[in-house]
């Protein structure tokens, strides 16, 4: 099964990357962890995200659309980085996350969410919506 593993933001990550000894150490530890994930054949991709001060939100309410500039307040709900893993089950994903070095200088959280699979979507999506979604996915293809 495919999962997204999200590193949740903290006060530190929201302040952006700083060239400190702590940061350097974290990068080394994280590099080693990534290497383990690759050696075990479970890591498909992963990236880090800039602080929410560089992000934007669009709020929806009926027909209205309001753009909100970052930074956003509820730090713990923000995402600072993610991986995509292919694992056998959630238990395996949990075990691997436990092995991750703490990605932040202070307390932090990592959240694991399984991807929807074709079969899950087939139940919820009407055929005409499936058709549109297929068309869209086709257009956003790389090549």
């Amino acid at each position, binding site marked *: 099964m495919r999962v997204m593993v999200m590193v949740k933001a903290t006060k530190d990550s929201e302040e952006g990357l700083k060239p400190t000894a702590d940061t350097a150490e974290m990068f080394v530890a994280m590099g080693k962890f990534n290497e383990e994930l*690759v*050696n*075990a*054949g*479970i890591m*498909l*991709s992963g990236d880090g995200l800039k602080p929410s001060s560089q992000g934007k939100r669009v709020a929806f309410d009926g027909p209205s659309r309001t753009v909100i500039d970052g930074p956003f307040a509820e730090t713990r709900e923000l995402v600072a980085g993610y991986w*995509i893993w*292919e694992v*056998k089950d959630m*238990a*395996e994903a*949990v*075990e*691997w996350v436990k092995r991750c070095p703490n990605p932040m200088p202070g307390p932090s959280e990592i959240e694991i969410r399984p991807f929807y699979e*074709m079969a899950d979507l*087939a139940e919820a999506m009407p055929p005409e919506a499936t058709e549109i*979604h*297929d*068309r*869209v*996915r*086709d257009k956003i*293809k*790389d*090549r």
Partner: protein
Amino acid sequence: MAATETHQAIETVFRIEQARLIAGLARMVRDVGRAEELAQDALVAALADWPKTGVPDKPGAWLMAAAKRRAIDALRRDKMQAKKHDEIGRDLEGERDTSVEDLEGALDDDLGDELLGLIFTACHPVLSPEARAALTLRLIGGLTTDEIARAFLSNETTIAQRIVRAKKTLRDAGLSFEVPRGQERAARLASVLEVIYLIFNEGYAATAGEDLIRPSLCAEAQRLGRILAAALPDESEVFGLLALMEIQASRLGARTAPDGSFVSLMEQNRARWDQLLIRRGLAALERAEALGGADGPYALQAALAACHARARKAEDTDWKRIASLYDTLREVMPSPVVDLNRAVAHSMAFGPEAGLTLIGGIEQAATLHSYAPLPAAKGDFLFRAGRLAEAKTEFERAAVLTCNEREKAFLLKRAAACDG
């Protein structure tokens, strides 16, 4: 409830560590079966200790230490027994216990390539491909005998016996469990790649409604391919095979219609292809080519798969490139089926006459004698060349040969269309 959770966590940790554990132990005791028993002993010890102490920081190291203690205890016991039988009565305390020290030394080595060594051993050419596949899934994939049996549409007893025999063969062969080097590596690596692709194809052949363990073989093979690619970053064919599997797997979600029937490549809804796997596959192919392995059999097949993956629509397919890749593939991997596919590719690239010329050369091949795709392809070439009466005969012949009802209906429809 907490106890069950701990229990589950321990089993998961064990599943993750199992392959490396067995690999390290096998190198020590030179016996896969014995290594597996020692690993199981370590699991039993963990199940007894961890609920009280919690899961240790380095569970893999803990399990290895527990298994190692067992191995050393057993060795000491054997030695004692041997001494008693000897009746020489030398003082055991004063003597250097070399094998125990060797054992400890072996464990302190950098075990970086131990897993790779186990993969090479499980895929050793002294074993049949079926035995290699079963053993690899058992030792490296961590599948149970029952799971392997269901995956290969076999029964548990057969698979259990196959694995027991394989372990015995390996023990009798007195292997070193090391990663082969130099010239030997090429031959041994081919055997490993063959097994991984066999596992992948078994999963790929699974049809809707079958036990879900079957399609999961694809994921298992891809994982093995990725492990191998990480461990052997300079072997082009490893990346060729990985690319081939990632690109083929990218279509898994698109090749089954809602009613469970098979959808052919050219008819698939390409929006359903998994773009993440395609990107990974194309990157692996690039790596294989950069390593100078563009003409390897797996890299060539991956390059063929990539031509389809790159085409946004079926009509955009670069048939000239496909035709030229088949020209090379038949040199490095000659087979009548490759020749037939080559004829089809040439007909798509250069017109039906080109296909007819090439198919003329393989029609007599004994292996294709009752192979439905042959007359089906020829019928298609003739149809496109406007030779309708001959096309009709070929389509009808193909319809008789196929066992697939849907395909039969399709071919008969094409035959009927020849009447104009």
